[in-house]
């Protein structure tokens, strides 16, 4: 997917470094760039999406999208829980917090002053999340067992 925004404050390199730092620090897991990069296939099956909105001098959103399986694995790492023992709410909580951390660090690169929303988390299959009027700033596809993590920044 090509970027259509004109925002130079946040780059794919920024997004990758921030996500890797969060994943390593809190999950002790390694995130690597997907070998297919922007050509990586779309997510299929049960999916989860975390989102935070930035408002103020800069307006837009940060999305984290992954399979439900990766969200559960990340949550189990955060909670130090055995596989399959967390509730759906706990998995949503963990993905929301990961979105908050990555979104908050991305926000620090953006023009100030601005505010960060609390995170929202959606889950299901075959859905699309859109921000009306927003254009894509950049998108990275990273991979961590058991699946890919898509991070995108959209500007309104």
């Amino acid at each position, binding site marked *: 997917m090509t970027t259509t925004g004109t925002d130079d404050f946040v780059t794919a390199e920024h997004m990758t470094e921030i996500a890797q*730092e*969060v994943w390593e*620090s*809190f999950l002790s897991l390694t995130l690597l760039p997907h070998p297919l990069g922007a050509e990586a296939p779309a997510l299929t099956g049960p999916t989860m999406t975390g989102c935070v909105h930035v408002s103020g001098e800069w307006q837009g959103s940060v999305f984290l999208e992954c399979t439900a399986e990766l969200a559960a694995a990340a*949550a189990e790492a*955060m*909670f*130090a829980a055995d596989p399959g023992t967390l509730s759906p709410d*706990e998995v949503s*909580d*963990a993905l*929301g*917090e990961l979105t*908050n*951390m*990555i*979104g*908050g*660090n991305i*926000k*620090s690169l953006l023009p*100030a*002053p601005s505010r*960060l*929303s*609390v995170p929202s988390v959606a889950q299901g299959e075959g859905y699309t999340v859109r921000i009306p009027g927003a254009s894509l700033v950049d998108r990275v596809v990273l991979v961590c067992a058991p699946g890919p993590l898509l991070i995108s920044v959209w500007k309104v």
Partner: protein
Amino acid sequence: MKILIVDDSKAMRMIVARTLRQAGFGDHTLLEACDGRQGLQAVAEHAPDLVLSDWNMPEVSGIEFLRALRERGDDVRFGFVTSESTDAMRETAREAGALFLIGKPFTADTFTDMLGSVLV
């Protein structure tokens, strides 16, 4: 000593508690609240020695929580643990009465450095 951890994320409250233990502060009593409103109640009820609060929370945010404490004359030691750590936010936190602001992600060493002089 009592440390009150305030964050709307249960996962993050667990991580903060775990990091406190890793940093050598595991002998302290750890209390939790899920937003600034609960935090105000918890401070009134338990009189903690230190509050570690997220900034971005529903109901009552971390900065609103701190300002409400100071307005009612409560000078409890207070620090932020937040995903946003710009210079402007650090200044806002300092002006409101926070002793420090720890950015997420953080390590046990960060906690040792920031809290070591506070929890003596």
